[in-house]
């Protein structure tokens, strides 16, 4: 077993009303190792990490750090014990600057007054180490999700923790940033920092970890050395069943053009660059999946928002849907015309947390459940149940709160919502972010199925392998401009990265 255990978890159980999040889990982490924790959504990974980080103070069992039994009453206790955590769901105060967030609760001060200069300098230094070039004084709300995640990482780094927990740290980072993070992790490893790394991504896990623990349904399935098993076998352990490698290049018949975009541009008033998007032109056919690749800030989300009528500044250029020129000033118009958008940040922009699964699913298609202007609960229930079974949403019922579903199932529910509107074009903004392997495969299969039924799909993603698996064609954006378009045969990760980093003239 591990020599010199720094963390010892003994028979830890955490119960919530109705569900056992962790069931008698015991493991030890060796000092200085990078230990990966893998498992599907709902397996208990985040719960275990939250217990270690002091976020969940009440549980059964015992946790020891460096040989001493500990009871954390809050995150401050954990921080003092030398544990820092980078959350999966960003925990930033949007109104404050990056520097303020990094030093939140541990502000540098001089005689009770905030030492802004020092904080800005130190924050700037940390961000530079992460090779992030944002202004540390910038309010976090103005940053894109990827940058926000880097601020979160910087916050944990500023703790100088002996133990660092990273919960899906790369879920919103592009390949470029992931490489940078690898460098940071290598540096930390050299300094002897123990790291707990939660991830769905097998390639990351197998690249970085020395040992891997698999959790499933709250129980520890196995802890092993990296070279004991292959990624495929580990995935099998996570899911408890075989996951076939999904390939879709089997002739997906391509129909006629459903969407034509001609020199679409989106102004960026007040910004040096002047344009968020400049002269984007492409066509989307029925039965086709078009991918949009690019780094953070390239304009992928903005492009989808423009097509959906959701951008606050009206775009310029021409968009033609099924031959008809369209100009949407509100998502309601786009919806009526047959376009659907599944947003990037489902917690903030997609879910109605107070509503049930059924209510979330039927929201855009309530007209189908009304008779003479009045909602018929029976019809609504039927619509919801059909959607749930059609997309395989795993839920204990359609009346439960949407928040009780795992990330992947929440995503399916939102996609179900949009499918009920009978769209011609489905826009998906990073749909598999925070979704586990099993659900991801199901989403891929779903997209393939929808295409064969005649939908046109545009999908953005920061995971290049995903785009290469799914898409018939890939468009690459760099700083708001279109730098390349590849067919499936032409596309390779290197070519896409090259186009994505090209500084267009």
């Amino acid at each position, binding site marked *: 077993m591990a020599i010199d255990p720094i963390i010892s978890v003994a028979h830890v159980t955490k119960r919530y*009303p109705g569900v056992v999040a962790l069931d008698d889990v015991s493991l030890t982490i060796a000092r200085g190792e990078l230990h990966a924790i893998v498992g599907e959504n709902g397996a208990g990974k985040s719960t275990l990490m939250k217990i270690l980080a002091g976020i969940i103070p009440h*549980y059964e069992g015992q946790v020891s750090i460096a040989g001493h039994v500990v009871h954390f009453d809050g995150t401050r206790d954990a921080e003092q014990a030398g544990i820092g955590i980078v959350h999966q769901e960003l925990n930033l105060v949007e109104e404050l600057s990056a520097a303020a967030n990094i030093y939140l609760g541990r502000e540098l001060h001089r005689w009770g007054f905030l030492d802004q200069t020092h904080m800005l300098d130190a924050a700037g230094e940390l961000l530079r180490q992460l090779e992030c070039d944002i202004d540390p004084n910038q309010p976090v709300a103005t940053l894109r999700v990827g940058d926000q995640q880097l601020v979160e990482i910087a916050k944990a780094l500023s703790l100088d923790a002996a133990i660092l927990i990273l919960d899906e740290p790369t879920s919103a980072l592009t390949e470029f940033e992931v490489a940078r993070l690898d460098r940071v992790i290598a540096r930390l490893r050299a300094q002897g920092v123990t790291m707990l790394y939660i991830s769905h991504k097998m390639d990351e896990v197998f690249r970085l970890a020395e040992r891997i623990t698999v959790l499933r349904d709250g129980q520890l399935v196995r802890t092993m050395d990296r070279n004991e098993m292959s990624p495929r076998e580990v995935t099998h352990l996570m899911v408890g069943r075989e996951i076939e490698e999904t390939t879709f290049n089997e002739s997906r018949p391509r129909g006629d053009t459903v969407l034509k975009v001609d020199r679409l541009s989106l102004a960026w008033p007040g910004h040096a660059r002047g344009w968020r998007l400049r002269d984007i032109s492409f066509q989307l056919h029925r039965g086709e999946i078009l991918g949009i690749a690019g780094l953070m800030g390239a304009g992928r989300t903005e492009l989808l928002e423009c097509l959906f009528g*959701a951008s606050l500044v009206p775009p310029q250029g021409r968009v033609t849907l099924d031959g008809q020129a369209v100009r949407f000033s509100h998502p309601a118009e786009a919806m009526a015309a047959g376009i659907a958008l599944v947003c990037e940040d489902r917690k903030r922009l997609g879910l109605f947390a107070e509503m049930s699964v059924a*209510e979330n699913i039927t*929201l*855009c298609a309530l007209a189908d459940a009304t008779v003479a202007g*009045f909602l018929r609960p029976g019809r609504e229930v039927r619509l919801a149940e059909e959607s749930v079974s059609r997309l395989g949403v795993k839920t204990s019922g359609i009346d439960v709160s949407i928040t009780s579903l795992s990330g992947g199932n929440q995503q399916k529910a939102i996609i179900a919502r949009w499918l009920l509107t009978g769209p011609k074009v489905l826009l998906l903004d990073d749909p598999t972010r925070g979704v586990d392997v099993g659900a991801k495969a199901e989403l891929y299969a779903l997209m393939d199925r929808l295409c064969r039924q005649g939908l046109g799909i545009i999908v953005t993603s920061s995971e290049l392998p995903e785009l290469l698996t799914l898409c018939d064609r890939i468009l690459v954006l760099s700083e708001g401009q279109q730098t390349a378009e590849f067919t499936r045969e032409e596309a390779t990760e290197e070519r896409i990265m090259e186009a994505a980093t090209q500084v267009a003239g």
Partner: protein
Amino acid sequence: MALRRRLLALLEPHEWGLLLAIVIVVGVTTVVDQHHTYLYDPGRSLHDICRQASMLGIFALGSALVIITGGIDLSAGSVIAFSGTICGSIMLLLAPEAMESGEPLGTPVIVAAIGGTTLVGFFIGTLHAWLITEVGLPPFVATLASLVGLRSLGRAMTEYLAHSTQIQIFDTQFRDLTKSVALQGVLFILLAAAMWILLSRTVVGRHLYALGGNEEAARLSGIRTNRLKWLAYSIAAMLSSLAGILYIGDQGVVDPQTLGRAYELNAIAAAVVGGCSLQGGVGTILGTVLGCLFLRLVIDGVAKMIHSGADVYEGLIVGILVVLAVAFNELRRARDTRKQFFSGALGIAAGTVLVLFGGIVAALLAGTQGGATPRSMFTGLAVAVVVLLAIVVVHRYERRPKHGG
């Protein structure tokens, strides 16, 4: 037992709780009241409660609607005052001699006054919605402006048209109509039913909840959020206008200085006690109705039990009830985490404040008949000690060693 489950599901847990609370309050009042008014004169009590609850309820429905959409409307009381002024003003303009002499105004004038006032209510709601959606003011600010501005405008109008601070309403037809408790009650029930249908059984209602729950997600789901806000604020203002019309008829005078002062807080309290969350997206019409009823019953109960004017303690009661109701809800939601109320410096300081508060209120209540007698002061002291002991017990209970982590 499927029937039992079906019956239980008719009301939400919060609503059942309110119903139970109402029963308890009625019971306690019946017993503690020295005259046992509820027992011996139920008709009169029913009459009073019905009037109070209906009048409050009519515009509380509007407040609840706005709160459910995630906004807030602080202007209800001022809209009531201003609408009353408009109603009286229209009557003055159309039939100045009749208003002066006390002769009947005639149905057409009354209809015009009611119609015009409701239209003005719509205008006010529209203005609110415009300020909030197009100009971008937070709802708090937009309706706060109305809160202070409309009353003042009403007073100016009254001066201008009636050359006095009040407008007297003599017309018996109008007064009989608006004074009738039966009318008030029926109107309240009908409006509540209509609102319930809107919120639970129509697409617009579902969209209103979605707007309150997550505005940005609602917009991105193709919901016309600005139009829905227009609807919500208009309805709220129009309901307040309706209440204003009823109040001036009931009281027989338009006094924009005093009419409806602080009523908006009672409306918001009724909505919150009834289960509406100020975050938006949560709340029911039935809950609001029960909230109104509960609030008025407690106020009436306390008045009967201590033989003082109901309004003296009204504010205190409403304040305490709102805190208790929302705290109760929060506790129910955070069932698992062991919340500690009296831990740390803040807990001790707050505990001290509660002890003082309890003592003072008890002394006041005990002294309602005799004033500042030694007996009442002693009662106050005794209650303070009891509160202190209770807090110490709770504090000890909270700090008991937990098992496990």
